[in-house]
């Protein structure tokens, strides 16, 4: 079960979607006005992420490469709809607080990113834990941002007053600019910790995902390498055919000119 632990650590710390990958910034900045909102958004996303990762991983041999993105979206949107209806039915206060950002989970790049980068080329169990790890990392990050903003902007923490009465809330922190301040400072602290760790000789590098390349720094944006590695003969043929077609098309163009 080493890979399970590895996926969890990777999601929460090393490839934390918010502080390291800088993904899903829209909900990160918009809903973290309080710790409870951040936690709710994080956990909601985690459920969708884990379920969609499992399904995409199960269907990875069935989904054709060329329409994989629409297929991912359909799967993700189905789960988001389920989660949205469940929230509306059972946790209405959270549903009201998150508002439009629940349906917007469909376009959250963490979910699509993990589907493309991990679930689509890995077995079901690691994909499940990748989703849970990433989701937990997102939840931790959002809860931290929400807690700091709530503490400074309203003087409370999880709706419990913790600051002394003489504290004057700095209300900018629960407005949009405060989200940027807090995110920037927390990211800076996170980077500082990483630098100190590297100086002490700890391994702070990201755990490689799927293809053996670090997707964040991978120049191969179309990820053709992945296709060639997995299904060599078929894809190579296709690529060759495409090239030939392109060349022919080019020749025709020049003839027409």
């Amino acid at each position, binding site marked *: 079960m080493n890979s399970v632990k590895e996926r969890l650590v990777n999601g929460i710390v090393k490839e934390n979607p918010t502080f390291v990958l800088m993904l899903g910034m829209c909900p990160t900045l918009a809903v973290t006005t309080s710790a409870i909102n951040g936690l709710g958004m994080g956990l909601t996303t985690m459920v969708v992420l884990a379920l969609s990762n499992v399904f995409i991983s199960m269907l990875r041999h069935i989904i054709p490469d060329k329409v994989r993105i629409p297929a991912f979206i359909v799967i993700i949107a189905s789960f988001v709809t389920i989660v949205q209806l469940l929230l509306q039915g059972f946790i209405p206060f959270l549903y009201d607080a998150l508002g439009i950002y629940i349906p917007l989970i469909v376009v959250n790049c963490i979910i699509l990113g993990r589907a493309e980068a991990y679930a689509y080329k890995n077995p079901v169990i690691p994909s499940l834990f990748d989703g849970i790890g990433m989701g937990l990392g997102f939840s931790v990050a959002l809860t931290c941002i929400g807690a700091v903003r709530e503490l400074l902007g309203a003087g409370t923490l999880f709706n419990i007053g913790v600051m002394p009465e003489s504290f004057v809330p700095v*209300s900018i922190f629960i*407005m949009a600019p405060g989200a940027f301040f807090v995110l920037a400072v927390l990211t800076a602290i996170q980077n500082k910790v990483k630098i100190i760790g590297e100086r002490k000789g700890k391994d702070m590098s990201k755990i490689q995902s799927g293809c053996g390349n670090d997707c964040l720094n991978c120049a191969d944006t179309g990820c053709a390498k992945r296709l060639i590695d997995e299904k060599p003969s078929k894809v190579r043929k296709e690529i060759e055919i495409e090239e030939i077609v392109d060349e022919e098309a080019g020749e025709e163009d020049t003839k027409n000119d």
Partner: protein
Amino acid sequence: MNDLMKVSSNPHVRSKSTTSSIMLTVVIALLPAAGFGIYNFGLKALILMLVTVASTVLTELAFEKICKKKVTIGDYSAVVTGLLLAMNLPVSAPWWIGVVGGVFAILVVKMLFGGLGQNFMNPALGARCFLLISFTSIMTNFDCDAYTGATPLANLKSGEAVDILDMVIGRTAGTIGETSMVAIVIGACILILFGIIDLRIPGSYIVSLVIFISLFGGRGLDWPYISAHLAGGGLMLGAFFMATDYVTRPITKRGQYVYGILLGILTGIFRIFGPSAEGVSYAIIIGNLLVPLIEKVTLPKAFGKGGEKA
């Protein structure tokens, strides 16, 4: 051997003025308005100014010590920031407002972007807007021992009569340094005489505001109304001391006119169509953000480029 040419790299023309001498001149130019603020609002204004200046200078010192950078508090730019910020605070503000504002101005707006010369907006104004958004009730409470009630601009907006002579001299409610048009203009004259600023930005700012107000203010060329707009609020302080900040204004001459006109139009929009009576700080901050674009489009052509081809 005296015939040998002296070869050196540029700059070849040097001026005696340094950052610290310029900043010191600005501090001196601010003193009339600051002094009037103390005369007008009492000793509490002086204390607030000292606290704010101390907070900006100490923040800069602490940041540079912690980050092991060259200590630059000797160039007085932090003093100017602190003084300008304090003059933008109402006298009823508690002392910690000055400290929070000073730390924000220096730490977030100035030092995190690389220190003097690198900041993308005026630190004093950035901090003022931060305070205005965070502590709205404190920052818009102009009640003090000398005056109660709204500022002249707020009265003007709600249609009440205002005493223009009081506004020009400065016997009105408002922030510490903005009330007296006379004192600020004296300071502006010092700046202009010493060649620190020129009239391009303040002039185009004020003229465009006058035109905007006479077009859209709903009263046409009503001079008492227009002069109340000019004497009221932070316009004079903003136009002469903040819009002309070397770091956050355009370098190109044409760009400075564009910048001034833009500020005038923005201030007019905020004052006339916006919900609050004052709009100078937000106008200048938005202008600051647009400076790189203004410089890009107003860049003069290099000699020999772009002429007609033979």
